[in-house]
């Protein structure tokens, strides 16, 4: 039981870190609407529930990495669009560097193992 929870934890930790990086990389390309982010992630093969996406965005926003503004929408109240703040850009840079290093290292390790 304890091991199962632990495994779950490790898996979700891993997913979560990558998910935040993916979200930030979508937003750094330009202002984005949460459900558009969700569908883009889906298309790329990363299944994510909007119920997971939204709290992540709120947390990133509260941490100061994201800004948001209200954009008029057709036939409804204004929509909340997210964009990258200055500190968000710096954070994204460091995330990207880490990701590059990690993926290279992980690739090397996993390939060595199979070979």
């Amino acid at each position, binding site marked *: 039981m304890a091991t199962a929870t632990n495994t*779950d*934890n490790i898996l*979700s*930790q891993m*997913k*979560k870190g990558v998910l935040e990086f993916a979200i930030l990389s979508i937003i750094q390309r330009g202002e984005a609407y*949460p*459900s558009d982010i*969700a569908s883009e992630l889906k298309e790329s093969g990363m299944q994510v*529930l*909007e*119920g*997971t996406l*939204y*709290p*992540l*965005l*709120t*947390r990133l926003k*509260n941490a100061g990495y994201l800004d948001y503004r209200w954009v008029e929408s057709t*036939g*409804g*109240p204004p*929509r*909340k669009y997210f964009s990258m703040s200055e500190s968000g850009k710096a954070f994204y840079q460091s995330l990207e560097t880490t990701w590059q290093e990690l993926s290279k290292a992980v690739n090397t390790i996993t390939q060595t193992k199979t070979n």
Partner: protein
Amino acid sequence: MEKIVQINYQGRNISIEENAYNDFQQYENELKAYFLKEVGGEETFTDLQYRMGEILEQKNSSGTQPITQADINELINTIGKPSDLDDEQPSGEKYEQASTEKKRLYRNKYKQGKVIAGVCSGIANYFSIDPIAVRLVFVLFTIFNIATFFSFNLGILAYILLWIVLPSAYLKDNITRKLFRNPKDKVLGGVCSGIAQFFNTETWIIRLVFLAPFVLGIITNNSSFGGHDIHFISTSFYGITFISYLILWIIVPIAKSPTDFMLLKGEPINISTIQNPISMEKVTQNSNSGINKFLKVIAYIVIICFLLFMIPIAFGVLMGAFFSYNLADIILFSSLNKTLAIFTILFFILLPVVGIIIWLIRRIAGYTKPNRPLRVMFTGLNILGWVSLVLLVANLVKENNTYITKPTSQKFNVLTDTLYIQAIDPDSSSSEQVIFSGNALDQILHRTANDNEIRAVRIKYKRTKDSLFKVVIEKSAFGSKRLTASEHAEAARYEYRLDGNTLYLSAILAVSNKMPYHFQNVKVTIYVPENKAVHVSDNFRRQLKHSVMFNKKNFKYNVDDDENYDEDILVIDDTDEDELIIEDDVIRIKDQTNDITIRSDNAKEAKEILDDAEREAKLEIEAAQRELEETNRSVQQQLEESKRATQERIDEAKRKMEESKREAKRKLENR
């Protein structure tokens, strides 16, 4: 055929099947419970609500079909069930960590959690109790404070002070207990047993607390209970628990789901309990944007201000009704009329006030859905109030539509130049103090074994050219027709007697208590001859102070209106009987507004000028007449004098002739 409901969600109009809507509401509540556990979760939840509204609208507009349960399931799959989210998201900052360190008083910053400035919500959070309870205490305190001290309000003052002093913070919904009515053990509405569960006590203890004032009141008031049924409500102590019970019955929701019962008993609730599909509760949804919320708060403030003005007025009206109850009692007389009057007071006056208060409390408590049975009940009772009012007025008007005045006049032969007026009744020592006490109107009526003694006597003074004092006593009354009105007037007994140069008058009119009071009243007019005076004893003047006058057009009540009173009583009007109508007009107008008083002053002035001119003319005529008489008299005198002189001369001549005759005779005899 599935029932379709139209809802407004997040500012969007959505048509949805009822079952689907129930599913959706349940899902929304689960989401809310899940997100509110997390720091900043409130905002996430609001964003998700917006998103759900968007999805629903899209589904709605893609076809003409309303939203079905399948659509809702699809929505749930897009957003995710709380149980799914929990797996993916283990490391959100939970409130438990944040809130353990800061056990201090804050104002609640969350829009959803507060009504005005989050003071009540903050206090509730501090004590971990239901914010409704704190708000209720504030509102009730404010209302009762207004009712008792008009000048300043502790409730509002405290609120503003706390608003300024307390720092604000995002406070987690930390209620572990919530008051519900208990449907499993109820006598009326389950209020008492709900409270008992809430405080972990026995139900009978709470019932006793609610019932005790009733029982006490009935025991202590038993003797006068039948005759004074209105006191039943007015005696505030046992009225309060009764009204509190009603208010609690209305605003406290009934426990329906297992969650409700757990909240009521203070048992801990975890996510699995909330997610449990047994949960059947339908919590009202929050379908408002920021602007709506702002407007709502403005509306609350307006309503509260309105109440602050209305409640004292309503209180005043009711107090007036209660204090004049003795008088009302003899006017209404029949039990039918009394019942109608009580219904009018309860359902026409009191009910709307209670209705507004309940509505406001429900708003504060966050119940936005109209309570249909309550509304039907209120409307029905209010209609009953209207009907009672109309019937009562119709009854009273039917019995009192003709006004008759019956004069009886008496001339007095008072030998001295001054008529003394004394009180016939012994002085009531309390009358001076009563002026300042609230129930001065009670002084108007005194009940004896067979009679109602009413202070409805008015004294007027007028000048007359007659040489004798004259007193005219006019009894007036209302009736259904002239005959009955004059019978009513006759039935009123008024006592007065003359003793030497003193006129004893009464300030009281006695009417049999076997019949209703038909506004019988007496006007005593004392006609004072010129150059004679009236002296009124202080005693009698004091007795007249508490008097009430009715006439065809107005209702006049003298209490402590000293100036007006002195003017009426002491100034002897400088008018002739012929000018009585003008005089009446002046008197009637004088008691109204200021500028009309000026008009009456003008009339008075004009009359004075007129009177002066008349007096001068009279004096001239009198002088001329006197001169004429003088001349006549002198002429007469002269005539008489010359007549007498002539007569004397004739007499002299006669005497001489007689003498000469006698002498001639003597001479003749001597010869």
